[in-house]
């Protein structure tokens, strides 16, 4: 249609939409007039008035049909039809509330699960930082060692070069997660904060609601600007929303910081998984992290950086420029940057926060909820089919009186749209209530500190509406497809009763059930694999004993201890603790295994080991006190572990692990040999067995230990081997700590088993989510199977009665129905198995020591599926068995 034509026809369209009844009346008047005129003409030709009238009607044809044809020809009355369809559809849904409620519940669950996962993806991966501007152009930047896939941090000088040289970047900023312990009563509360560059608030476009952000240059120098911007939450909870807060001080790491600003409500910083409570400038890094002044040290990598790309710049373009810069830095600063490059990551792959570990889970979840939605759609499609069968009379009549097939399809689609629109509204509500639910799936100890919000923004709603339309098409098309088989004579034909399930329409319904069973079988297999994987990961030996070991800490820095005083305190505390009944040994360590802190790493050198040209051996290590290995139960393979005599005045010593011995000394016992750490030579005095250090899923890696006293350290954690329960241990430790200093506070005390549980919480989240959704899928599939079977039984009462009259026993009929239900299930499981064999590989990263094709797990999924199918078929089968032949045959 040309534009001109469209303009010409506009008035007609408007009239037929706005004045529908008037247009109809005019049309009727016109046709009446035609008849009148024809009648007069006929009379003039000599017919009697009655005859003239009848002849006129005959020549014109059926008035009603012509009227409908005229309406159809005028057509295009899309909105009018739609309104009519909506009113009609609503009446239809209202009239069969059981059907409507079931369909809407199915769709609400299906669409709600999708919307919830979308909102998590949005809030955690795509737009994770509320109030931060232009997140679509925000990318994470970090260092990467050549040949490795895991990203790490940048140094401050590298960052300055990046900021200066990246012309495709609008700007870059620094964050580094940190914490400070606030003493509240006799317990210590850890507050999460960020160390940021001075441009931080300007680049992310967040304006403090009170005071100011940082000024240029406030990040320069060494501990030169003790200023802090606090979060709205911090301001509310700790300062009761004091309007005069600006200029007051807050002690952080025992240093008084001047409060210069308060961020707006709803801003949580830029770290996925945590709500940041305070921000300090980069110059304060040393205060928070210790380990010397780093802003001029290119080898000290601690920076999590982000860049804003200029509009229209692609990640590949920016990466090219940044890689070139990385190569230049390698050349210019060989000592620190050899073998290192700089890499850009999209926000959802950010290597230094929880986005990375949640990404594989959410990826799998997208597939899982899509399955659940398809199963729900199949259910609704099945329900609509039943209704289409009930309504075939109505449909045929409408066809007979002149409705076009297209019009009927439109009507059915409108009904589908109403169902899915209500389902979507309900689903969005479900998702809204579930938006913070991810944290609930985590173990309490982890969940309390985590902040993983879903985000219900326009994009999530748009995607959900898209899903809604898709669902409409799917569920509306099933019965619309069936109108193909309708013909005007349809309702006149006798209802023939067939064999159970042998009618044409049942074929489509059975196919839908088979489809549902296969999808839910896949989900069952997935859940079984993940569950087994979690079992394995939790029962794998971490290389240290998890029972009888408790971990806690004493906040010495907050109490103003310097290093010599802290060392003395630590020795005294260990002495006192060894006298406590039940405590077998105790040792301090800078980092506890599988905790949230990362291990430092150092370049190493070994006599007789020649690294490859571009290899710079860099190995993680831990700083531990005397008796650490014994306390944790890590076996010593050779030599000895640290003693109290290995202090700052003694020769430097180290203990290496087995993998390190295998790789750098080719399996020879290195006890007594030299190891260069951070440029200084230490003597290896022992070899420890391998253990898990950062994650239960890691493979054995080289690792070594240094004595706590020979390496400056921040607040170490206390490991205690005890036979007593946690609570009494906690009380005993607090008593001993207070005996030394009344003002000290104790960290939360947890067992190492709890630590392991926390470390495996991503796997737990995956298992929980897949199990919940797998259960939901199973339930929906069972409802589908039940629906099909009970419908088949209801339709075949005549046949069942006949069989019974001919001598079939009740258990024959029971078996007949059950075997048909199991047949459908078997077909579904077969398809499901084929698809699952191809699909479970996608779980890859989430599986630990479990084959994605494990036959035992497939078998257990089969058992669950069969039991579910049997219970779904039991009621219809029982009904079939109770068929009363006399009553059925009489009717």
């Amino acid at each position, binding site marked *: 249609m040309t534009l001109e*034509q469209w303009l*010409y*026809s506009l008035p007609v369209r408007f009239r037929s939409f706005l004045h529908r009844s008037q247009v109809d009346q005019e*049309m009727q008047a*016109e046709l009446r007039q*035609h008849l009148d005129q024809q009648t007069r003409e006929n009379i003039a030709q000599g017919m009697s008035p009655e005859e003239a009238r009848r002849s006129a009607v005959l020549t014109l044809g059926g008035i009603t*049909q012509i009227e409908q044809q005229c309406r159809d*020809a005028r057509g295009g009355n899309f909105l009018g039809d739609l309104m009519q369809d909506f009113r009609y559809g609503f009446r239809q849904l209202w009239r069969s509330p059981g059907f409507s409620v079931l369909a809407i519940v199915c769709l609400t669950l299906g669409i709600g699960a999708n919307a919830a996962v979308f909102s998590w993806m949005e809030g955690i991966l795509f737009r994770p930082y509320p109030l931060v501007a232009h997140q679509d152009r925000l990318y994470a930047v970090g260092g990467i060692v050549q040949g490795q896939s895991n990203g790490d941090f940048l140094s401050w000088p590298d960052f300055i070069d990046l900021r200066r040289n990246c012309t495709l970047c609008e700007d870059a900023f620094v964050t580094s997660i940190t914490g400070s312990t606030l003493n509240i009563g006799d317990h210590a509360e850890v507050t999460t904060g960020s160390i940021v560059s001075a441009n931080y608030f300007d680049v992310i476009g967040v304006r403090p609601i009170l005071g100011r952000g940082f000024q240029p240059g406030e990040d320069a120098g060494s501990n030169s600007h003790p200023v802090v911007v606090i979060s709205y939450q911090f301001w509310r909870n700790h300062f009761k929303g004091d309007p005069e807060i600006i200029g007051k001080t807050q002690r952080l790491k025992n240093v008084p910081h001047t409060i210069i600003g308060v961020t707006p409500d709803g801003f949580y910083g830029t770290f996925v998984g945590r709500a940041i409570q305070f921000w300090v400038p980069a110059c304060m890094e040393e205060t928070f992290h210790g380990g010397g002044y780093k802003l001029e040290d290119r080898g000290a990598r601690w920076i999590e950086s982000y860049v804003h790309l200029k509009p229209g710049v692609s990640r590949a373009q920016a990466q090219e420029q940044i890689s070139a810069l990385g190569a230049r830095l390698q050349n210019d600063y060989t000592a620190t940057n050899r073998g290192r490059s700089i890499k850009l990551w999209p926000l959802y792959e950010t290597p230094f926060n929880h986005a990375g570990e949640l990404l594989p889970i959410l990826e799998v979840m997208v597939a899982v909820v899509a399955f659940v939605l398809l199963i729900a759609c199949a259910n609704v499609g099945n329900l609509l089919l039943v209704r289409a069968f009930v309504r075939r009379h109505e449909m045929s009549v409408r066809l007979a009186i002149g409705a076009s097939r297209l019009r009927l399809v439109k009507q059915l689609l409108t009904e589908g749209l109403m169902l899915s629109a209500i389902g979507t509204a309900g689903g969005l509500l479900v998702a809204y209530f579930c938006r913070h639910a991810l944290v609930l799936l985590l173990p309490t100890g982890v969940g309390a500190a985590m902040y993983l919000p879903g985000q219900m923004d326009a994009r999530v709603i748009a995607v959900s509406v898209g899903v809604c339309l898709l669902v409409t098409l799917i569920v509306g098309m099933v019965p619309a497809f069936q109108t193909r088989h309708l013909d005007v004579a349809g309702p006149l034909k006798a209802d023939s009763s067939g064999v159970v399930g042998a009618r044409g329409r049942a074929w489509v319904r059975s196919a839908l059930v088979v489809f549902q069973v296969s999808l839910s079988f896949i989900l069952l297999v997935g859940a079984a694999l993940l569950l087994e994987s979690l079992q394995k990961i939790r029962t794998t030996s971490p290389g240290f004993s998890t029972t009888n070991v408790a971990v806690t800490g004493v906040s010495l820095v907050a109490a103003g201890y310097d290093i010599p005083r802290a060392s003395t305190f630590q020795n005294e505390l260990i002495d006192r603790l060894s006298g406590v009944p039940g405590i077998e040994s105790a040792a301090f360590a800078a980092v506890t295994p599988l905790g949230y802190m990362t291990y430092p790493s150092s370049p190493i050198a070994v006599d007789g080991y020649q690294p490859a040209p571009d290899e710079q051996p860099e190995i993680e290590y831990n700083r531990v006190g005397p008796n650490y290995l014994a306390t944790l139960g890590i076996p010593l393979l050779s030599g000895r572990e640290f003693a109290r005599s290995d202090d700052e005045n003694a020769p430097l010593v180290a203990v290496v692990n087995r993998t390190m011995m295998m790789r750098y000394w080719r399996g020879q016992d290195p006890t007594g040999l030299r190891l260069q750490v951070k440029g200084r030579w230490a003597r290896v005095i022992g070899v420890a067995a391998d253990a898990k250090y950062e994650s239960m899923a890691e493979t054995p890696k080289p690792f070594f230990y240094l004595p706590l006293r020979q390496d400056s350290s921040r607040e170490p954690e206390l490991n205690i081997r005890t036979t007593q329960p946690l609570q009494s241990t906690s009380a005993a430790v607090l008593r001993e700590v207070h005996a030394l200093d009344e003002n000290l506070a104790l960290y939360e005390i947890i067992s190492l088993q709890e630590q392991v549980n926390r470390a495996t919480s991503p796997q737990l989240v995956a298992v929980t989510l897949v199990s919940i959704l797998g259960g939901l899928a199973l339930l929906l599939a069972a409802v589908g199977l039940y629906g099909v079977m009970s419908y088949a039984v209801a339709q075949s009462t005549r046949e069942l009665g006949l069989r019974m009259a001919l001598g079939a026993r009740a258990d024959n009929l029971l078996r007949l129905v059950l075997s048909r239900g199991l047949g459908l299930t078997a077909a579904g499981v077969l398809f499901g198995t084929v698809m699952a064999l191809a699909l479970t590989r996608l779980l890859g990263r989430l599986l630990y020591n479990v084959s994605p094709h494990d036959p035992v797990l497939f078998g257990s999924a089969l058992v669950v599926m069969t039991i579910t199918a049997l219970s779904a078929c039991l009621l219809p089968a029982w009904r079939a068995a109770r068929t009363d032949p006399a009553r059925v045959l009489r009717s």
Partner: protein
Amino acid sequence: MSKPSDLVQGTLDMLILKILALEALNGWAISQRLKQISADVLGVSDGSLYPALQKLERRGWIRAEWKFSENNRRAKFYSPTRLGRKQLEKETAHWNRVSTAISGIVKLKEA
């Protein structure tokens, strides 16, 4: 009520446009005129006329006005729009081309 199936698609539209181009008429008069021209050959029933008129109006080719007829009765009179006249020209040219071609083929002598 059946559509004139042997009538080439769109021909009825052209006939109506042609008739209306000469004079604005009401429905009944159009049907009389159609019959006069060739009711037997074309077999246009009155029943198919009205949907066709609705379609033409919707396409913006004709417009309808309520006027008084000769015998002083209010009736709906149809007349072509500027767009309709253009369409008629186009259709006529097309028809001439097609019919010349077809009659040329029909007149071919068998060898």
